[in-house]
Structures are given as structure tokens and as C-alpha cells.
């Protein structure tokens, strides 16, 4: 009797062990499955609801309003000090530039781009690469201003869209990176290029062009996202009335020191200058689904610094423009600097905000170092903020010895994205304190001329630094400001955890208290963190991601790494 009982016992034990092993296999398979990306198809509704979607970052500015504000709170002021690196992805591409990509993250997949237009998908939990697409430039040497860069992709349904340095718009299969279609937006040999992340609105994919330094005529264009057919074009440079009213001051009354008589006399000769009038659109528009309006910033007139051959206000360079997303028709514009000869144009992407009194407004941080707050329905100025950088000899004329000017030709706020904390009503703005001499052409040329047309030179020996400011959009006052070692360029991201994240050229990636500006955490990335950070939630865990690959134009150390941070330990239980 003992023997059979022993056999039964052994058999039972074996069965249990086998069962446990099988159970373990099932668990392993489940865990593995949860590590696999799901390639969620991004619907129009998901884009419209992006603000409510806690886990994903589905469009360039996180939501259509471009606020770069996340409702996630797992990482907050009380625990951000223990943030650590979860994983790092290095592109391995040796040809570096300004690494300004703003990742898109959807249910386990992160989509990235590099300065020379390689797009890639990586597992957003592990950093493992899924696919990559290397765009072959259609000409050997595309012409673009200010260093090679790309700011990211747009995604809709199963397609990823990337605009390229050679002025193409490419549609890729989100699962494989295979090309679905590829169209030339404009002729790259005529100076057109693309650096912005496209925007999806309904059946359209929307892009603007850069090239205001090469005599282009700027525009924003909508394409059918299914096949790349152009649907409408909104020119930023007006063919009729580009001379405007020959205003002697800005809209807010600052003297522009213009010689109106000379400009009017030049109209006969230069009346057609609009044809090469510049007005690039560098950055992704914001969009208000209620009014169906797109809002975008328009760059400098062309030529950049020589106003004598382009008389008039040069509408609509240096403008914030609103166009109907359905047909591209213009609704309003607000020109920040008429007849700009200082390169103080509008480049930082506009943001839609709801003010305390209920007004829907568009806010934009100018290279002029003011934040402009405009009524989103009419374009009328509601307020202009206090300057977030020093102002000195604004709109002065050049002299042989050089007129010392602040902001210099880089701003103010350059291409940097702003972020908004809607609860506090603060906009977070990156600023550049870079005094420059504005000199006449009689000064001798020196090597190392600036990219913007040679007439501005940094003041030798003078300290350059950066600012990071919280601007109260309801009052226009600076709520707080911190100084940084170097001029700031890149972008900011705010969260409901009362945090704001921003990177610096010296490799610092910082988390600050959104209410006070107190620095709570910092990581040294080894290369400039000059891209806008993003955040997302996966498997109950919040991650912060940022590309740290430097900035070409500012000379910040280059690199190729995307760094992702999280709190230590397993994801906390969901408080259901």
C-alpha cells in the first residue's frame, strides 16, 4: 500500500510542479505581451480628446492648443527629487545637428526624428527600436537656415507624417516605417525647407515652409492625409496690400524709426518685393476645434535686414495669423514688428489659452521679449506682458561702431516652445540674454559671421545668459524668473504635478516647481538638452522623455540620445 501511495504523491507533486511551470509560462507570456507595443490607430477623436487622455502624447503640443501641459501627477513636487533614468535611446546616427525632436508616444510606441530626417519608432517602455526610416534627401545639399533640425512627426490612424529638410512631406506606415506616399511641398533648390512637426486636422495634414532667409514666399499648406494631394495654401506674404499702412510705430506704440518717405519713393521700384518676401512658418500651428481656426507664427521678411528693397509694413511677416482650417482663408492677423530690420520676428509656436474671464486667447512669446495675448476670435491685443528679457535700444538703427541692442537678433524667445499651467494661468518662456551690436555695412567683415545676414555681432566680453520665466497670462506680469548659465533654446513642458521641465545648453535637464521656479531636480545629460520634453504613462508608471542632442546654431554640445526618466520601483497601484 505504501508504494502506490508514494507514487500517487509523486505524481501529484509532479502535476503541481507542472501546473506551476505552466502558470509561470502563462505569466511570462502575459508580461511579454504587455511589453509589446500595440500600434494603436490614432483617430480624429483621440486628437480632439488629447487633453483628457492622460497616458499618451498624441500631437506635437500634446493637444491642439499646443499647451504642452499634462494632467499626470504621479511625478510631482514631493517625489521628483528621486527621478532616475529608466532607459536611453541613442540614434547612432553620426551626422548630428540640432536635436529638437518632440516625441509622440502612443500606447507603447514612441516616434522620433533626427536632424537629417531619420524617423524611428521605439518601444516606449524599453527603448528598443522597432523600425527606422532614413529619408534620402532629393538634392545633395538642401538649403536651410540655422542648422539642420527636425521637430518631430504627426500621426493619424496608421500613418506617421514627417516634413523634411528638402521640403518634402512623407507619409510612413506606423507599424513598419514603409513609405506610403512622398510629395514635394516646394522646390528645395529655391530655398524652401521643412523643419516643423506636421499637424493633423480631420482629413488634412498641415505643414508650413521655412526659407525666409532665401527669398521664398512663405505659406502654410494642407494636404489630404490619405494620398498627399494638396487641398489649400495660405500664403503668409500678401500679394495685395503687403505694404500695409506704412506705420511708424508698432501696434503698441514703439517707434520703429522708419524713413517712410524713402520707403514710399521705393514703391515703384520694389512694389513686387512680396514675390520673394520671406515669411517662413517654422513651428507647428495650434488649433481651436471650436472655431476651426489654425494659429501660427510667421517669420522674418526677406531680405532679413535690408529694408530698403522691401518698402512698407511687409505684411504679413512677423505676424500671428489665424486661418480657417477648412479652406485656408485668413481670418485675422496681428503684426508684432512692421517692416522688421532686426530679425525680431515671430517664431515660437502660438498657444491657445482660456483666460480667467473666460476669453479664449492666443498667446505667443516673441523674439521681442514680450508675450502677446490676443483675442482668439478677433486677433485684437488683450495685453502684452512685461518684458521677460532686458530691452535696450529696441528698434534702433545700425551705426558704424554698432548700436548695442537687447534683445539681440536671436531674441527674446527663439523657436523654443512654451508650456502653460492652466490652473495657475502661467506660461513658461525660454529667453535669450545676448546683447548684440547692430552695425552698418561699413564695419569690416570678420570671420564667424552670424547666420542672419552679418549685421549683428555679439558684444565681445559681455555676459550672455538665459532666462526661464513664468508669465502670468491674466495680468501680463512676470510671476517668477530664473537665470541660466547660457541663453535658453529648446522647450518646456508643464504637468499637473506642479512641475515644469526644461533643458539647458550645458546638458542640464531640470525640474522646477511650477509655482515658484525653485529647482527641485536636475540631471546632467552630457549634451545640450535643447528639445521640448514630453511625458506619458505606461503600465501605471509615468515617464518623462527628452532629446538631449544639443543645438547647432548656439554651439551647444551635440549628441544623439533620447533620455527617459521615471520614479524608482514598480508602478504604484492605481487608486481605484
Amino acid at each position, binding site marked *: 500500500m505504501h508504494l502506490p501511495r508514494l507514487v500517487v504523491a509523486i505524481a501529484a507533486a509532479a502535476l503541481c510542479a507542472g501546473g506551476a511551470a505552466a502558470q509561470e509560462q502563462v505569466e511570462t507570456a502575459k508580461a511579454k505581451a504587455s511589453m509589446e507595443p500595440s500600434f494603436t490607430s490614432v483617430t480624429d477623436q483621440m486628437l480632439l480628446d488629447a487633453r483628457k487622455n492622460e497616458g499618451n502624447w498624441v500631437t506635437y503640443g500634446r493637444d491642439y492648443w499646443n499647451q504642452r501641459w499634462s494632467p499626470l501627477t504621479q511625478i510631482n513636487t514631493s517625489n521628483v527629487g528621486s527621478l532616475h533614468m529608466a532607459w536611453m535611446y541613442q540614434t547612432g546616427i553620426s551626422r548630428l545637428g540640432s536635436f529638437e525632436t518632440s516625441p509622440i508616444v502612443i500606447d507603447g510606441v514612441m516616434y522620433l526624428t533626427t536632424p537629417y530626417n531619420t524617423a524611428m519608432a521605439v518601444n516606449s517602455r524599453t527603448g528598443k527600436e522597432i523600425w527606422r526610416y532614413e529619408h534620402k534627401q*532629393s*538634392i*545633395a*545639399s538642401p*538649403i536651410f537656415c540655422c542648422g539642420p533640425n527636425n521637430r518631430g512627426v504627426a500621426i493619424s490612424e496608421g500613418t506617421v507624417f514627417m516634413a523634411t529638410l528638402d521640403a518634402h512631406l512623407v507619409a510612413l506606415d506606423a507599424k513598419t516605417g514603409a513609405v506610403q506616399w512622398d510629395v514635394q511641398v516646394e*522646390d528645395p*533648390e*529655391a*530655398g524652401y525647407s521643412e523643419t516643423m512637426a506636421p499637424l493633423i486636422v480631420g482629413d488634412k495634414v498641415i505643414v508650413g515652409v521655412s526659407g525666409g*532667409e*532665401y*527669398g*521664398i514666399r512663405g505659406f502654410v499648406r494642407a494636404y489630404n492625409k490619405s494620398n498627399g494631394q494638396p487641398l489649400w495654401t495660405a500664403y503668409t506674404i500678401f500679394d495685395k496690400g503687403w505694404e500695409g499702412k506704412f506705420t511708424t510705430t508698432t501696434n503698441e506704440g514703439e517707434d520703429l524709426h522708419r524713413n517712410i518717405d524713402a520707403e514710399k519713393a521705393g514703391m515703384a*521700384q*520694389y512694389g*513686387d*518685393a512680396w514675390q*520673394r518676401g520671406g515669411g517662413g512658418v517654422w513651428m507647428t500651428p495650434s488649433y481651436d476645434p471650436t472655431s476651426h481656426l489654425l494659429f501660427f507664427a510667421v517669420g522674418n521678411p*526677406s*531680405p532679413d*535686414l*535690408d529694408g530698403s*528693397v522691401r518698402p512698407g509694413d511687409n505684411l504679413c511677416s512677423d505676424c500671428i495669423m489665424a486661418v480657417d482650417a477648412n479652406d485656408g482663408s485668413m481670418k485675422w492677423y496681428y503684426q508684432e514688428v512692421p517692416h522688421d530690420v532686426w530679425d525680431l520676428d515671430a517664431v515660437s509656436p502660438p498657444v491657445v489659452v482660456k483666460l480667467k474671464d473666460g476669453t479664449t486667447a492666443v498667446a505667443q512669446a516673441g523674439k521681442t521679449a514680450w508675450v502677446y495675448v490676443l483675442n482668439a476670435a478677433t486677433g485684437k491685443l488683450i495685453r502684452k506682458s512685461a518684458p521677460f528679457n532686458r530691452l535696450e535700444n529696441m528698434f534702433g538703427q545700425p551705426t558704424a561702431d554698432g548700436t548695442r541692442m537687447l534683445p539681440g537678433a536671436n531674441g527674446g524667445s527663439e523657436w523654443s516652445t512654451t508650456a502653460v499651467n492652466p490652473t495657475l494661468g502661467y506660461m513658461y518662456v525660454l529667453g535669450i540674454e545676448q546683447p548684440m551690436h547692430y552695425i552698418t*555695412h*561699413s*564695419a*569690416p*567683415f570678420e570671420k564667424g*559671421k552670424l547666420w542672419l*545676414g*552679418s*549685421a549683428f555681432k555679439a558684444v565681445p566680453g559681455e555676459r550672455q545668459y538665459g532666462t526661464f520665466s513664468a508669465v502670468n497670462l491674466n495680468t501680463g506680469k512676470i510671476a517668477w524668473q530664473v537665470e541660466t548659465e547660457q541663453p535658453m533654446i529648446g522647450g518646456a513642458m508643464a504637468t499637473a504635478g506642479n512641475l515644469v521641465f526644461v533643458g539647458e545648453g550645458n546638458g542640464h535637464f531640470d525640474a522646477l516647481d511650477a509655482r515658484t521656479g525653485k529647482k527641485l531636480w536636475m540631471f546632467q545629460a552630457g549634451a545640450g538638452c535643447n528639445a521640448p520634453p514630453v511625458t506619458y504613462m505606461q503600465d501605471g508608471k509615468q515617464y518623462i522623455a527628452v532629446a538631449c542632442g544639443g543645438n547647432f546654431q548656439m554651439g551647444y554640445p551635440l549628441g544623439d540620445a533620447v533620455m527617459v526618466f521615471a520614479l524608482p520601483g514598480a508602478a504604484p497601484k492605481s487608486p481605484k
Partner: protein
Amino acid sequence: MQRSVVGLTGGLICVLGAFAAGRSSQDAAMQPRHAALLNGADWAAYSPREKEAYLSGFIAGAGAEQTRAFAALAGDSLDSSAVSSSAITRLRDGKQLRFSYAPSVYAAQIDDFYWWVDHRQRPIVDVLVTINRQMKDR
């Protein structure tokens, strides 16, 4: 290769000479000058349309001369009347044009260059060749 460069330069000078002669005939006060000598002072006096005309002529001439040089390398001999626009278009489509950018692109770069008065003695042709090389080397 050396041969094609020499040919190219000769062709450019023909085109520029024609441009300069045309301009000079409009302005009796101006002495006709060899196209290769036109410099920043001349450039500064041109209107945007004249700059575009100058550069369009330069680019077309360069394309024609390049076509001839390529034909010569292939053992064919083309006189100027045999250079067709379709041949130049083929070069352009094949991304082989030496001066491949639009006049507006070159104009913007030359404007920048001549902003500095101490650059103005430098012939436009030299500046164009230098700028083109810089853009291609980016």
C-alpha cells in the same frame, strides 16, 4: 575635369558679358566693363529684378556650358547652338547641375556677402563660385 571647368568659365563670361553689355546700353554714362570684373559695387546698384536677371543668365550659361563639357567628355562635339534646354533639364533632373539653386537663393547669399563694404572689390563671379561651393559642402 579641368577641361570642363575651363569651358564653364568661358561660357559664364559670355553670358555675363551679354548681361553687362545690355545693361550698359541702357545707361550711356556707364562704361562697358568686362563681365568678369563686375563686383560688389555693381551688385549694390542692381535692383532685385536685375539681380535675378543676372543670376538667371549666369545659371543658364553655366548649365549650357556644363552640357557642352559633358558632351565633350563623352566624345561628342557640340557648338553653342546645339545645346538644348532639354539637355540642361536632364542635367537638372539628374541633380548634376553645378549651379543648381534658384536665383533667389544665390541673391540672398550675395546680398549677405556684399553687406560688408570691404568685400565689394571682389568680383561677383568669384563670390558666386565660392558661395555655391559652400552651399554644396554643407
